[in-house]
């Protein structure tokens, strides 16, 4: 190392120790000035020799103890206690400068605080950066066969975990420190790697409980385009969509949701499974809600929404838009309002098994009644739909009919069902119902509307930009008390969040031209 450089570093040490009162350890020095750890120790020694007072020195003693049997021992001692500590060791012990600082801290943790912060910084660097912490290049001992990619997991994931781990706050950091530091005293050479190794298992453990948050992290960097795969919590999704910002960063909702995930640790495992769909659905729903408002200019572009246009045969050319937010069969309970379409996309049999069918049926028959002007009597409805079954070549119609006859396509069955249906709208329990209307382009739009809240539900549906899906999902929970628990659980977790956020989201829609700070500033 050039002499001048050494002088510069020594001056820096001087100012760090005396002005900023920082603990300068050889480890910190090595990483900060990118010198090897032995050089860093030498520098510190030089510093100690040059400046005799104004600071305190912590020495690292290592060697065999005089005790019997001899034990290899490493010890940190302050300068004043050095002679007596030396007594314990054999003559051949090594004395190195561990750190210099303005005064010996009361709390030993302060000794490694600076270097821990530094290590944290290095951890936070993007995975592609091969920094000195990752490759341990300044270590006195090196083994070219040792790969320092933590646990073989993709680095980006681990780094994001680390990040969230680190974000947990100082307490947890300190916890890690206390584990890592004694270790590092023992394998002085390996300190950085051992730290990494030590951190990572605990991180890995945390991954499960925090998978929500970390996934968010991982996902946040993805372009918001691929909505199907996103496991972002519904809220975040919405915020992003609501603002229409294309910034790749997550929204602050990420933080809220993570915070809540932490405070409610009971749900995380499920969340990661259950949230994705509603999330995707709600974003879709938002899109389609907007489209409802905009007059359906581009139905076909809508993600995840099966938009089927079925000609109704004679005369009345009407289109029907249906929302499908159940991609997976396992969510059929949760999202069975959309089940007519699920049937379309998949097997109608799955639906038949579902207990929750009455509502979809009801919605469908409402649908038929209102829009297609079917005769009002039950039998006629059934006939009508049977006719549809026979006559209509369209898949949609078929499926609609199938939904109407969920178990068997018999008139009796249907009549029963229709009775239920008739009863349903009158019952005061039903707060939300499916409404069908015809938009300005002659298509039928099915929406879920809160009847309890509004006296004129269709109107509300029109003026409201709230997501149809929200309503759908919540109604899945509200409408069907007998529905499977799963449905209500889902309704309570993600979708309830979703509805809670609708207000915000509206504001977000309003502010579609509002810039986002994240497009100006980067996260540290």
């Amino acid at each position, binding site marked *: 190392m050039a002499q001048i450089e050494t002088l510069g570093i020594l001056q820096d040490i001087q100012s760090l120790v005396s002005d900023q009162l920082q603990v300068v350890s050889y480890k910190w020095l090595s990483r900060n000035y990118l010198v090897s750890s032995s050089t860093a120790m030498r520098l510190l020694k030089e510093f100690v020799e040059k400046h005799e007072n104004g600071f305190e020195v912590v020495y690292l003693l290592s060697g065999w103890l005089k005790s019997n049997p001899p034990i290899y021992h490493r010890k940190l001692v302050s300068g004043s206690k050095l002679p007596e500590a030396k007594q314990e060791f054999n003559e051949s012990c090594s004395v190195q400068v561990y750190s210099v600082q303005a005064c010996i801290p009361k*709390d030993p943790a302060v000794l490694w605080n600076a270097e821990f912060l530094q290590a944290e910084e290095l951890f936070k660097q993007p995975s592609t950066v091969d920094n000195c912490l990752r490759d341990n290049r300044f270590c006195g001992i090196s083994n070219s066969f040792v790969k320092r990619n933590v646990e073989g997991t993709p680095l980006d994931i681990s780094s994001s975990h680390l990040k969230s781990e680190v974000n947990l706050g100082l307490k947890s950091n300190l916890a890690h420190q206390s584990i890592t530091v004694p270790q590092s005293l023992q394998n002085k050479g390996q300190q950085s790697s051992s730290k990494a190794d030590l951190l990572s298992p605990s991180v890995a453990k945390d991954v499960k409980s925090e998978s929500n948050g970390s996934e968010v992290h991982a996902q946040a960097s993805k372009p918001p385009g691929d909505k199907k795969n996103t496991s972002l919590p519904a809220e975040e999704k919405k915020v992003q969509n609501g603002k229409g910002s294309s910034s790749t960063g997550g929204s602050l909702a990420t933080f809220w949701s993570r915070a809540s995930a932490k405070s409610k640790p009971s749900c995380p495992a499920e969340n990661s499974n259950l949230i994705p769909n509603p999330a995707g659905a709600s974003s879709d729903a938002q899109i389609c809600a907007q489209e409802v408002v905009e007059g359906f200019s581009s139905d076909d572009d809508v993600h995840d929404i099966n938009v089927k246009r079925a000609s109704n045969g004679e005369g009345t050319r009407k289109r029907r838009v249906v929302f499908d937010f159940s991609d997976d069969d396992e969510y059929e309970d949760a999202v069975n309002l959309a089940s007519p379409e699920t049937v379309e996309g998949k097997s109608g049999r799955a639906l038949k098994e579902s207990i929750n069918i009455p509502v979809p049926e009801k919605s469908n028959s409402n649908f038929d009644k209102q829009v297609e002007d079917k005769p009002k009597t039950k039998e006629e409805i059934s006939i009508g739909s049977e006719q549809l079954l026979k006559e209509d070549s369209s898949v949609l119609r078929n499926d609609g009919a199938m939904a109407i006859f969920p178990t068997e396509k018999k008139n009796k069955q249907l009549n029963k069902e229709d009775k239920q249906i008739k009863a349903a709208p009158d019952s005061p329990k039903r707060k939300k119902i499916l409404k069908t209307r015809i938009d300005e382009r002659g298509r039928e739009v099915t929406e879920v509307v809160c009847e309890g809240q509004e006296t004129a539900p269709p109107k509300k549906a029109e003026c409201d930009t709230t997501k149809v899906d929200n309503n759908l999902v919540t109604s899945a929970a509200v409408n069907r008390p007998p529905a499977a628990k799963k449905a209500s659980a889902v309704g309570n977790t993600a979708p309830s969040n979703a509805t809670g956020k609708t207000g915000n989201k509206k504001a*977000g829609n*309003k502010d579609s031209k509002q810039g986002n700070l994240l497009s100006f500033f980067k996260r*540290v």
Partner: protein
Amino acid sequence: MLELRLVQGSLLKKVLEAIKDLVNDANFDCSATGFSLQAMDSSHVALVALLLRSEGFEHYRCDRNLSMGMNLNNMSKMLKCAGNDDIITIKADDGSDTVTFMFESPTQDKIADFEMKLMDIDSEHLGIPEAEYHAIVRMPSSEFARICKDLSSIGDTVVISVTKEGVKFSTRGDIGTANIVCRQNTTVDKPEEATVIDMNEPVSLTFALRYMNSFTKATPLSNTVTISLSSELPVVVEYKIAEMGYVRFYLAPKIEEDEDDAKPQ
């Protein structure tokens, strides 16, 4: 161990009033240099950065960097229990999940302890680069607050345009439009009443008045406000806290594409 003794306790109360509407929960970061906070509002549009330097405290002890997550509404509730002349001491132990606010009356005959639970908040700091702003306007904070309040009754957004002549705040709404021009005015008796414009190039940006209005909650902290604008950057609205630090609000501009932006929906 953390112990911060602030003789002018009302200052902390004002700070909380200034930021609690914008941010619900935030981490207060304590280090040897001072007591700071950085947080974004929930929609990521605005950011508040607070710094209270250690020199401003009568007694400042922070053994190690400490980040305390607090619900600002709750904190504000507690601070409201402090008298305006009270001396406020913030205390926290390492590893503790509570923070204690101690209020001493000036005559020392009443001492109140309030312990508040801390929260675990994941927040990420944004790196805010030092930037040269195209225009920096310093004006009386009350004047700025008045303008924001007045304009928000007309429209939703404000266009702030700085030229050599002065700074223009304009808005438009359903009922009409409004323009307020403040000319540079350095010839006043009191320096805090001056309007000073330091402009390198003209700049015009649109902002949501809603946020501006919440920034003006910090008006009691300072007689003057500094508004720094650059066409490619969020505006910075800074209220200096005498001898201690500052509260800075950053607000992302609205992207001007068409005119119906200014109309309320």
